[in-house]
């Protein structure tokens, strides 16, 4: 092992043009491969704080599980549904988590294809987030349905009655979209992890763990051939996932736009939902990455330049979403459909004003602060803003689903909606479920892609570090 110099933190933190992926400029404080290995592997050591958080997550999950069991036993009446508001917190939360699942693939796949350098240090985190978010989202259609023990009827499986699902139903499209997306996301995450698992294997002392990591890494030996295949596979999967980012949330939006409900039945939904999904995903990425970079002492990997670049993406998607909001109102007015106009009026100035204004404030107004470079480079503000974005995006789905259903064609059937403790218990449980997996992940596997960081680490130590640490024995 070569002697490595300790890298000093560069408090200047690089130039003001962050997107130029130039070695030595992107991560000026990361000096060599050994440092990368040491610092990133160090994050895997369990700490008390981590354990506390994990226990808290599991507690939340327990509350959610108990609520769900009670709901399965009693019936959906224990949730706050008020017909005709037949969809409520569960579908809102489903769309919320699916949306969050989108930023990961966007960052790992689309930005990879676009060679956006700032993705390198955050993509692993975002991609893990994607997988767990989709895993969370996937539970909600099952939680939502009246007879969850029959959910498999939505899956086309061969049966002697020759009964198939209704391929005209967007819910069946959802089944395909989500399962495809989950499969691809998991595969993509795993493929990207292969060299890193090998690195962990090499650093691992415990023989049993070493054996397991060895299995998981598929016996990665760091050969030229392996790298060649790896690079092609990664590129292929990136290309494969890219359309999924667009299609999955489009399909989710069809759940709404295919129904006749005023405020749902509109062609803008697909792009609107995709933009919203990416926006919400960026929000969640910040919520996760900012504490991680602070507590795992990774500020010199996830640099302010990275934050800055991500914030610009957030700002852009926020403006797309805001534009969609405005277009919705415009079309309602321009289209001249009275039912739709009344619905939009009711949404903003009527019964649901508070939800609509939370949505508009969090998603449209507050992100405008990101026009300020100072704020874009202020992790505290970004963290606070990301929380607002999460809240705002949850309320966006609330505003789409609940006011639409509560104020339809039949005035006699207009109603309200009051979620109960079961709704909130399961909502809490979903966060518990998500964070449980995420917390387990960040202590088992590197939250920053070691191999990819090494690709952009300044070349002066490349030879020795690559030889010694990237698995070459």
């Amino acid at each position, binding site marked *: 092992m070569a002697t490595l110099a300790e890298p000093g933190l560069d408090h200047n933190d690089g130039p003001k043009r962050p997107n130029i992926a130039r070695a030595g400029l992107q991560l000026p404080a990361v000096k060599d491969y050994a440092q990368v290995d040491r610092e990133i592997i160090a994050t895997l050591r369990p700490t008390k704080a981590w354990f506390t958080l994990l226990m808290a997550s599991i507690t939340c999950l327990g509350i959610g599980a108990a609520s769900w069991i009670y709901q399965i036993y*009693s019936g959906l009446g224990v949730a706050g*549904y008020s017909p005709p508001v037949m969809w409520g917190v569960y579908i809102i939360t489903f769309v919320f988590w699916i949306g969050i699942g989108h930023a990961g693939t966007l960052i790992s796949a689309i930005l990879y294809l676009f060679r956006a350098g700032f993705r390198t240090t955050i993509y692993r985190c975002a991609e893990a987030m994607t997988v767990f978010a989709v895993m969370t989202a996937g539970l909600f259609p099952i939680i939502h*349905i009246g*007879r969850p023990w029959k959910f498999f009827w939505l899956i086309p499986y061969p049966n002697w009655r020759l009964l198939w699902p209704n391929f005209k139903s967007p*819910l069946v499209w959802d089944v395909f979209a989500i399962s495809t997306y989950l499969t691809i996301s998991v595969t993509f995450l795993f493929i990207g992890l292969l060299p890193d698992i090998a690195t962990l294997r090499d650093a691992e002392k415990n023989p049993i763990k070493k054996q397991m990591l060895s299995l998981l890494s598929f016996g990665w030996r760091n050969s030229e051939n392996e790298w060649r295949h790896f690079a092609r596979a990664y590129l292929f999967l990136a290309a494969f996932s890219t359309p999924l980012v667009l299609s999955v949330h489009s399909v989710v939006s069809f759940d709404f736009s295919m129904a006749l409900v005023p405020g749902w039945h509109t062609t803008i939904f697909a792009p609107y939902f995709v933009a919203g999904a990416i926006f919400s995903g960026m929000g969640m990425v910040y919520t996760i990455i900012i504490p991680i970079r602070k507590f795992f002492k990774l500020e010199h990997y996830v640099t302010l330049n990275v934050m800055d670049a991500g914030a610009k993406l957030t700002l852009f998607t926020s403006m797309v979403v805001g534009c969609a909001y405005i277009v919705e109102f415009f079309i309602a007015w321009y289209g001249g459909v009275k039912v739709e106009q009344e619905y939009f009026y009711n949404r903003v100035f009527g019964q649901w004003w508070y939800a609509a204004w939370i949505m508009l404030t969090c998603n449209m107004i507050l992100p405008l602060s990101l026009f300020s470079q100072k704020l874009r480079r202020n992790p505290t503000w970004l963290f606070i803003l990301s929380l607002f974005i999460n809240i705002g995006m949850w309320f966006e789905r609330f505003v789409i689903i609940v006011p639409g259903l509560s104020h339809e064609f039949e005035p*006699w059937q207009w109603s309200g909606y009051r979620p109960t403790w079961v709704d909130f218990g399961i909502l809490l449980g979903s966060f518990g479920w998500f964070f449980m997996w995420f917390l387990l992940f960040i202590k088992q596997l590197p939250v920053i892609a070691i191999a990819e960081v090494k690709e952009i680490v300044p070349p002066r130590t490349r030879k020795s570090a690559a030889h010694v640490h990237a698995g070459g024995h």
Partner: protein
Amino acid sequence: MKDLTGTDIVQEPVMRRDFLKVLGVGGVAATAVGCYSDQVEKLIPYVSSPDNTVPGVSTYYASTCRECPVGCGIIVETRDGRAIKIEGNPDHPVNRGALCGRGQSALQGLYNPDRYQAPMKRQGNALVATTWEDAISTLAGKLAEAKKAGGGSAVFINQHEQGSFPGFLDGWLAGFGMPAHLSVDAEAPLSAIAANRQSFSTAWPKHDFSAAKLVVSFGADFLDAWGLPVPQQVDFAEARGKIDGAPRVIYVGPRRSLTGLNADTWIPARSGALQAVAEAVGAAVTGKGNAALTSAAEQAGVPVESLESLVAELKSVKPSLLLAGGSDANATATAAAVNELNKALGNIGLTIKPSEGSLAFDGLASHAALRDATERMAAGSVSVAFVRGADPAHAMPGGTKFGEAFAKVPFKVSFSSYPDATTQLCDLVLPDHHSLESWGDAETVRGTLSLQQPTMDPVFNTRATADVLIAVAKADAQLAGKYPTDYRAFIAGRVGGNAGLTKALPTGLTKGSSLASPAAKTISAKAGPTGDGEYFLHVYTSPVVGDGRGANKPWLQELPDPVTKIAWQTVVEIHPDTARKLGVAEGEHVTVTTTTGTLSAPAYLYIGIRPDTVAVATGRGHTAYGRYANGCGSNAMSLLGVAEDARSGQFVLSGVRASLAKAAGKSRMVTTEGSARQHDRGIAQAVTLEQLKHGEGVVHAHVFTGQAKTEFLPGLRAPVANDAQGDLGDPKSGEKGQYDPNHWSGAAKRRWAMVVDLARCTGCSACVTACYAENNIPTVGAPWQGPQFWPDRTGFGANVTRNREMAWIRLERYFEIDREPKDVEFNPDFDTRVIPMMCQHCGNAPCEPVCPVYATYHSPDGLNVQVYNRCVGTRYCSNGCPYKVRYFNWFGFGETDRAQYAFPEPLNWQLNPDVTVRGKGVMEKCTFCVQRIREAEHRARAEDRELEPDEFTVACAQACPSRAIVFGDAADEQWAVSKLIDDSRAYHVFEELNTYTAVVYLRKINHPSSLTTAKA
């Protein structure tokens, strides 16, 4: 245990599933060894099946409805020995096939889980079960004592029932030296009866709505609970259904009841001023001058112009029909003045036919007589009291203190089937059979005797009161010989013995022998103080739960009031103007205080009530009437003191002074109403006759194109819309799909459709109850039907406050106003539209393509089908539905092991075996009574014939007293529905959505005139 006919009585509660299991096993066993096991004997309703009964095939019994005195003929459908549905008897002269919600709910009285299951005897403070032998010997002993003492101080209070029982009862009482019984009915229109007796020498003449060109009601709620509700509604709808020549209706009274909402004009006269109005209008019409009009208008609080135009209209439009109800202190005088006016206008013989009147109210005792008996009880001069069917402790005004007085009677006997406020004070309870379990008769149409027969074995260990009376009489040596073996023999004696009875029973009708109607004793009435509050209290009889007797039936509790749309709740109706003055929002509690009592309840803002009037419906606030009634709402009668109309002895329910104050507390309204107005969405449309004649306002946009049986064009006549799901055939092989009308199966040759005539529909909601009964729809409003842990809302109607009621057909009641009711200022001139809304069975249904599992799909004959077994409960179909007619099972309302189970034993005996009871987590909705369609088709196939036009109909159409609903095959020209859809008034709701609905509405007809009430 045997009943009177010698048949074994089933006592053990039977689960339907067990029953079916055993039926199968038992049937095999019977064939194999020719005998039953012990278990089988206990479980099968019929131990030895009567001849000609086939398991799974209904038997029908003609009988007479006993839920109110009208005496409607009913047909009771029984299946395997259990009554499962009550329908109107089409051959009966009273109701002509129609039946109201209350009549249909008799089943839930029969199967009420809170019924007495055995005779009860007081031991200390509690009533404990005893045997009939013991109970009868106790009663016989007491009667012997009473007879020895002269018996004159006994009081027998019987719920008024017309027929031979009152005479039988009086004879029995006389045998023990007791005075004649009091035949009471808290709902009875005593004022009108007294005035009719005075004017026409009959209690109730026939009111011929069809002959009238103008109907004026002075507080007579002939579509609510006043008079003979079902026959009146049948006649009224028939008259309004004529379109051209239909009568205009003017309603005079302080509150727009359902009758008031069906009126074209409302003159909002103050309670207590109706007499002045009637007399002044009478004077003006008969040419005695308009002088009195001004003071009458002032007294009534209406502009004099409105009375002047009423006079003008009465003068010009003939013949007219004037009715007077009302329950204020001078209601009889009002009715008498109105009768005189009818005479002066020459309406007698044209619209009022005294000779064809109803005998329903013959023998009725006045409220004053009941109050008088109460006073005697309070004075301690009554030695023994009997009560049967009535619950005076609940239904009498609080000021009479009936309960306290009754408690002073040394020996009190109740024949009530149910625990109630009166019965729980009694010393001996001898539970009567339900009317569906016992013999009886009624002769409300002169010369026609309507029989009442047992339709099934008794549910519990009860006994018909008449038989108990006979048994007691037989214990007396002097009387024993005078009585037949049982009451059945008595009835048979009236119709020519057993042979006559057997002949009469299939129709339930036979020639009557004119009953001697016992003359009611006149008791002088007591006028009460009116008090000095700022407001007029208007207590009205609930058209749904009546004086309270309906409150133990969940169907009625959950049936929204046709006017307020409130269920499971007592509300105080005030005008929005009043609410603003008091600073009260809807749902906030207000306290009504009279000199007698106070009542706090949520405020309901009603635009159809005078701002100086406060209305409360009767019928709720029970304390001992079973699980569905106790603690639900408040008793309006507690506000009323001892005050009677001097001429008729009718309790004064309206016009008492009251004060009103905001109270602490707020409740959610247990209402089915979302928004009270249509927001110009054209759901319930109307035209005037003028417009109709000139073709204005008639939109011909609805397309009924496409030749039936040949084309797949969108539209009603086509069997299915062109993009319907399903196998449309294989173009390669040339094989036609099932959805092709020319397919060999003929499955697609029919298109089931429905026409609803809004000119006829009054909003009475009888169809809703019919649907509950036919389709096993659970009620969801009982307090235990919500979540079991930490519910956010408990109490009666909690599920309804979340809109979770399951009524497959609902009555939407829209006010034609330009703002929300709470912002409305008083204006009597507003139009009301009612529209029954059920699944529209769209040809191009938005619910169908979205279902991921094909749980809802389109049948070849045009039905939108829901497959409960396949449903996973995504509720996507409901989101797609613009009519919002899909209902979800939020809890296990149909699952026996759930707290939320809607049919606690033996209510589940009523369930229709042809219809699935739905479990939790599935969607349900109107099926167009698919079980009836298939039954008719199968019958036709079995008889090797085609369906005959209008051979059968759906439950709602069958019950509808207005005959507003017509169901049938729109693809076949022979069916009535197929002609009606070509009416120029026809439209589809939300036609612009291209749903191609199978339900066609015919626009309501409005009858505006020069008589426009000036703004008050």
